């Protein structure tokens, strides 16, 4: 017997989610066909804002790639809109003319952006903010820079404004009402938000009514009712959305503002269901993601004929995805005679919190600046349990103060009910995570992400998910498996790196404040890591924190077991000259340096230098033209070479010359761990390039680029990245490897371990197969190097930097 046919119209978040939930309940019940008007797989639309702001890429926000549809035997019709539904014949007619029969039909047609019909609204340059094409259009416009006007100061408009501003546009926000986000925020929070956006260089015009968008054959500006004119190259219309119910209406279903549905998401036709932003349920339409997940669950239950939760409407909470601006609101927070409020402000931190109570129950919450307790208050609102009189005093301080004494965070998580939402981005509840951990035998955060999507989008709930893992697994939960950075945080290296960029954190204290560090100023593990991550994330902007550097990098020499230091000047490509050797000999004599040695990296090492002598030693070496060899740093160490075509009868290319060019390009670069290179002039490989972090082996036809070798605690031959024909390419590819490692590597993770973790094929895909990505990596590396190539020895020997580092305190006198 053939299976019944299910057709889903709309490959958005709701449509795909119904299928996910259905496959979970009844994997093989239907033959499924899915229509998607956008020519791309299903993606997380609420994460478009970070894509616009450059904080995520499209790949990051894909929910189900094409393999997922294939694996579940879904006949996916991408880029095919639906023209009509014949309910009598039970047929869906695609824009391609093909007819698809159905037994059950799901409408998930979503919503359309609302366009205010002012004159000029159809001019080229007027953009909405709804799908990836809109984002691409905005990003294209940003390339030539200029001015942008965003009409609409709600959630979507502000996220668009933030993204445009981050892309260098001069942004003006036009908002009809008194305060921004007036539906989600009260006035004080709206004020703080407006101030923050102004501080970021955006202009905010409230009480501003658009009269027309003017321009001859494209947008030139916006004219307000009061006569003001704001010039603009693009106008983003983000005033709201309305349910896209046209298809349902034409098919004769009951439609008001949206497609009418009951609690099982069934429309006026028993064989047709509808979910998402296109529906109207008990008089309400929804534009936020959390209630939509509930709708999908109800619809999937109906399709699977399973007993399950119905959709009974939902309280909604709001979070703004503008990095660095924390805004949260939930419930009803309007003033009222029989309502009481509890307010907390901390002007210095820019924090504002307000709770609204009615009949002793929490009914609304608004928070600005500190939203950590958002989920807790939201749950309290949904629970509708009375607030005890003695609890009132501390309620505003949130969960950690609930009940008086601070509670163990594990106990707080344990106390959450199963339906408490842990991951707001993907609508994942505590119950679902705990069940997945138990049933699928998950032991780490990656497993939970893969199975439930919890913490896979913005990552702020990672700590909660880890606590659930610990709670479920007890001692079996291996904290090291989570790879938190150190005991000061619950976050792993990847999360910290991502959040530094997403939240634009630009100092060690900012990271610790914003990411809830558990210690006041970190430890010897996390501080150097954070210092590196900040340096790598914000070249030219971040001011290095010397006190977060290990002594070797602070003193620019290697500490030895007796507290003296070793000094290694740079020898480009392992080359030296008689005058350099003479200068080194003179320094050894002058400062009575006890030991001089050749290193494995073709350098000369002077050991046993007293710390107080370091600046004078460097001054003499500088005078002979030598600079720091960074033999002490998590940085570019050495580029070893053989003599290549200069002298060798087997040499195929100028390996020495290439080695020197590589070293001149890369010196001074800070990296997650040390980086050693080598260039061999022929496959005999005298420079031992195939056990280096990055190695080049010259051959007749060009250059083999190798990476991820090791010759320390582990010995490992390199992986071949690719072959290139020219020296220019060799330099570009090596720099791209270096930059990718700088951006993805965990602190103290060598290149070979990084490659092992992320996969050699993934690295090849980003460097070899993606030319534009490689070029961008190369450019980012060169940009960062502009700020890295000042000789730290000269700065300290004669430039007066960090003088206190090298001299002891001189006691003034014995007190009288």
């Amino acid at each position, binding site marked *: 017997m053939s299976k019944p046919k299910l057709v889903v119209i709309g490959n958005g978040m709701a449509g795909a989610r119904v299928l996910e939930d259905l496959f979970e309940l009844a994997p093989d019940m239907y033959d499924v066909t899915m229509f998607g008007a956008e020519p791309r797989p299903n993606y997380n639309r609420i994460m478009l804002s970070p894509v616009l702001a450059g904080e995520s890429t499209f790949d990051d926000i894909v929910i189900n790639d094409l393999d997922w549809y294939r694996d579940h035997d879904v006949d996916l019709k991408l880029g095919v809109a639906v023209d009509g539904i014949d309910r009598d014949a039970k047929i869906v007619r695609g824009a391609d003319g093909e007819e698809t029969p159905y037994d059950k039909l799901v409408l998930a047609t979503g919503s359309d952006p609302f366009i205010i019909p002012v004159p000029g609204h159809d001019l080229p340059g007027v953009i909405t903010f709804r799908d990836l094409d809109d984002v691409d259009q905005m990003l294209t416009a940003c390339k030539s820079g200029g001015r942008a006007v965003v009409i609409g100061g709600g959630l979507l408009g502000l996220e668009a404004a933030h993204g445009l501003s981050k892309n260098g546009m001069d942004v003006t926000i036009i908002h009809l009402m008194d305060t921004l986000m007036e539906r989600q925020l009260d006035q004080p929070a709206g004020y703080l938000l407006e101030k923050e956006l102004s501080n970021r260089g955006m202009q905010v015009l409230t009480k501003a009514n658009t009269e027309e968008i003017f321009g001859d054959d494209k947008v030139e500006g916006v004219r307000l009712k009061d006569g003001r004119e704001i010039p603009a190259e693009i106008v983003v219309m983000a005033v709201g959305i309305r349910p896209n119910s046209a298809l349902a209406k034409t098919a004769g279903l009951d439609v008001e503002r949206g497609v009418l549905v009951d609690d099982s998401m069934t429309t006026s036709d028993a064989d047709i269901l509808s979910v998402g932003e296109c529906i109207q349920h008990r008089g309400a339409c929804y534009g936020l993601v959390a209630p939509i997940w509930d709708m999908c669950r109800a619809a999937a239950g109906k399709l699977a004929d399973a007993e399950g939760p119905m959709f009974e409407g939902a309280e909604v909470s709001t979070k703004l995805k503008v990095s660095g601006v924390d805004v949260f609101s939930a419930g009803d927070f309007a003033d009222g005679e029989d309502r009481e409020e509890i307010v907390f402000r901390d002007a210095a931190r820019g924090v504002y919190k307000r709770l609204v109570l009615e009949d002793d129950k929490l009914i609304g919450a608004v928070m600005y600046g500190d939203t950590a307790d958002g989920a807790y208050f939201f749950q309290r609102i949904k629970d509708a349990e009375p607030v005890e009189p003695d609890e009132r005093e501390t309620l505003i301080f949130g969960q950690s103060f609930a009940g008086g004494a601070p509670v163990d965070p594990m106990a707080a998580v344990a106390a959450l009910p199963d339906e408490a939402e842990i991951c707001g981005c993907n609508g994942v509840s505590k119950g679902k995570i705990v069940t997945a951990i138990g049933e699928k035998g998950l032991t780490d955060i990656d497993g939970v992400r893969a199975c439930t999507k919890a913490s896979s989008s913005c990552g702020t709930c990672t700590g909660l998910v880890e606590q659930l893992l610990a709670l479920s697994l007890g001692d079996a939960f291996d904290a090291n498996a989570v790879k938190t950075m150190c005991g000061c945080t619950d976050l792993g290296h990847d999360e910290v790196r991502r959040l530094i960029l997403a939240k634009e954190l630009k100092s060690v204290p900012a990271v610790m404040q914003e990411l809830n560090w558990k*210690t*006041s*100023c*970190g*430890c*010897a593990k996390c*501080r*150097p890591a954070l210092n590196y991550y900040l340096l790598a994330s914000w070249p030219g902007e971040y001011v290095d924190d*010397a*006190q*977060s*550097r*290990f*002594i*070797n990098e*602070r*003193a620019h020499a290697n*500490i030895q*077991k007796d*507290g003296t230091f070793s000094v290694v000047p740079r020898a480009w490509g392992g080359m030296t000259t008689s005058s350099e050797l003479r200068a080194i000999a003179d320094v050894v004599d002058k400062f009575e340096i006890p030991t001089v040695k050749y290193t494995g990296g073709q350098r000369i090492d002077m050991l046993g230098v007293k710390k107080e002598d370091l600046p004078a030693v460097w001054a003499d070496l500088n005078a002979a033209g030598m600079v720091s060899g960074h033999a002490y740093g998590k940085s570019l160490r050495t580029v070893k070479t053989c003599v290549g075509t200069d002298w060798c009868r087997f040499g195929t290319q100028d390996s020495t010359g290439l080695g020197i060019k590589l070293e001149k390009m890369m010196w001074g670069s800070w990296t997650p761990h040390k980086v050693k290179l080598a260039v061999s002039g022929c496959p005999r490989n005298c420079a031992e390039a195939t056990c280096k972090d990055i190695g080049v082996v010259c051959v007749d036809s060009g250059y083999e680029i190798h990476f991820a070798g090791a010759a320390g605690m582990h010995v490992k031959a390199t992986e071949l990245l690719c072959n290139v024909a020219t020296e220019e390419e060799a330099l570009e590819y090596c720099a791209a490897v270096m930059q990718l490692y700088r951006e993805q590597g965990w602190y103290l993770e060598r290149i070979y371990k990084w490659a092992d973790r992320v996969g050699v094929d993934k690295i090849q895909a980003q460097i070899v197969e993606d030319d534009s990505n490689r070029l961008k990596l190369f450019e980012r590396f060169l940009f960062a190097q502009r700020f890295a190539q000042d000789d730290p020895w000269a700065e300290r020997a004669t430039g007066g930097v960090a003088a*206190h580092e090298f001299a*002891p*305190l*001189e*006691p*003034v*006198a*014995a*007190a*009288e």
Partner: protein
Amino acid sequence: MDGNFMSDQWVEIGRADQIPTRGARLVRIAGKQIGVFKTAGGEVFALDNQCPHKKGPLTEGIVHDTGVTCPLHNWVIDLQSGKARGADEGCVRTYRIDNRDGRLFLSLAE
């Protein structure tokens, strides 16, 4: 000078602002090598500049909360007590230090 202090015990070693925050300086007094440490909160501590483990110079370590991590083998020494934290056992001598309006005075008295 404050007459409450014995004159031969207190030595003025410099100003608090000569010591980097979350950092340290070395001072040599009467043949001793003493590390002077300043925490993020501006508190100043003085200890013998020798890790009880293998005599690593503590002034070269990373200062965090009220501790310092030795640069040689990562022992963490508590600046208040001079004791090694965690599983390690050992103790270095601490010295009394007095911050008078930014001027630092150190006592060699036991």
